[in-house]
């Protein structure tokens, strides 16, 4: 009965279209350089760690969408994590000396789970500050409290309130006419048609 889409005022439009972030799918090649250096530190375990890291680097995929982040990696043991922006509690940004030289960083994202390690560790993203601010704007408790408090549950938005009132008035008019009918005629045996 209502043609126009009824979007309340309090509804948040998806904040700034972060196209560059949605475009992130693979880690930067610099991550491979870092992985080689990391494997070198392993000493005798070097070939094994390097193979593992190679698989990880090759299979690492990110997907940012309107609701959350998906991340998957692994060839033999595949793993896929999905988390919603609104559940993010803490954002840790860590970079050691080598990562700083390469321009890399690790972005660890925490939710309220009981694990002591990060739920998701984003590696190999160059514009990590942009991603951090992007996540910050979407994490728990960052929505504007004023705008979220505007549309209380149950209270109709302005536009539809007028329509509802009009119909209710009409219904009241109908009831009034029923009373008149009842008062006027004998109400011995009202049949149902």
């Amino acid at each position, binding site marked *: 009965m209502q043609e126009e889409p009824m979007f309340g005022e309090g509804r948040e439009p998806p904040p700034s279209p972060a196209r560059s972030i949605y475009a992130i799918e693979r880690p930067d090649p610099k991550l491979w350089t870092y992985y080689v250096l990391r494997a070198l530190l392993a000493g005798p375990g070097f070939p094994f760690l390097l193979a593992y890291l190679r698989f990880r680097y090759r299979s690492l995929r990110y997907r940012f969408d309107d609701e959350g982040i998906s991340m998957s990696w692994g060839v033999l043991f595949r793993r896929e994590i999905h988390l919603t922006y609104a559940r993010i509690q803490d954002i840790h940004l860590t970079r*050691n000396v080598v990562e700083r030289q390469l321009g890399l960083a690790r972005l660890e994202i925490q939710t309220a789970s009981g694990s002591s390690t990060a739920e998701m560790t984003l590696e190999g993203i160059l514009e990590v500050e942009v991603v951090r*601010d992007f996540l910050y704007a979407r994490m728990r408790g960052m929505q504007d*409290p004023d705008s979220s408090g505007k549309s209380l549950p149950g209270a109709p*938005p302005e536009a539809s309130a007028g329509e509802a009132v009009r119909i209710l008035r009409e219904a009241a008019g109908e009831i009034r006419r029923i009373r008149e009918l009842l008062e006027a005629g004998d109400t011995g045996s009202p049949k149902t048609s």
Partner: protein
Amino acid sequence: MSRVLHAVGRLLAVPGPPEPPPGSEGTARVFRAAPPFYRLLLLRWGVRQIGGAVGLVASLIAIGHVPDYPFRWLLDIAETLGVMGFVAQVPFTLLLVSLDYRYRWYIVTDRSLRIREGILTVHEQTLGFANVQNVSIRRGPLQQLLGISDLEVRTAGGGTTGRHGKGDKLRSDPHLGLLRGLDDAETIRELILERLRRLKGSGLGDPDDAPSEDEADPGDAWIAGAAELLAATRELRRSLEGS
């Protein structure tokens, strides 16, 4: 001294002060560790150095008592390397201690807390006040003497402590924001608590988004209900008229 520190900081590419989170202009307040914290760090460093030196001397004495055997020269080499390494690390770790004190920032905004610390590994933590469960102040005997304290801000979720050693509490518990070496921890706690109070519905169990996000528009529901009422009454009247 400070020029040397800055040069080393640049050499290690330690980033400068952190930027406050976006959207917090005007509310962001930056805090630094108090000067006594530097003394505390130096003290800890000194104790560690003395411990290392005692261990080294003990091992030297022990090696001195080892009787001659064919591979004695290997031990001598290890001994020399140990002493050299110890001597070399003294200025290096001392430098790290002073840098650790200097490159340390805590930003409190209206909605979040950002902690930046670390030299070799720079660590920046951002946590939203909407998730904070409790705020506590911790003060050990040495810190009482120096008049400083640590402020702990905990968010929901578990975490083990001690897996990475006592000194590295932050890395072992990701749900803990630790503001170390504050001289006015009470003020900052009050500031954080006051901002927590302003955020209604803190903690878990509250809806995350604006209410009625996924259900139908409340306005539509009202209209539908009213229309139903109208239809029912109109039917009733028609049936009465017809009778």
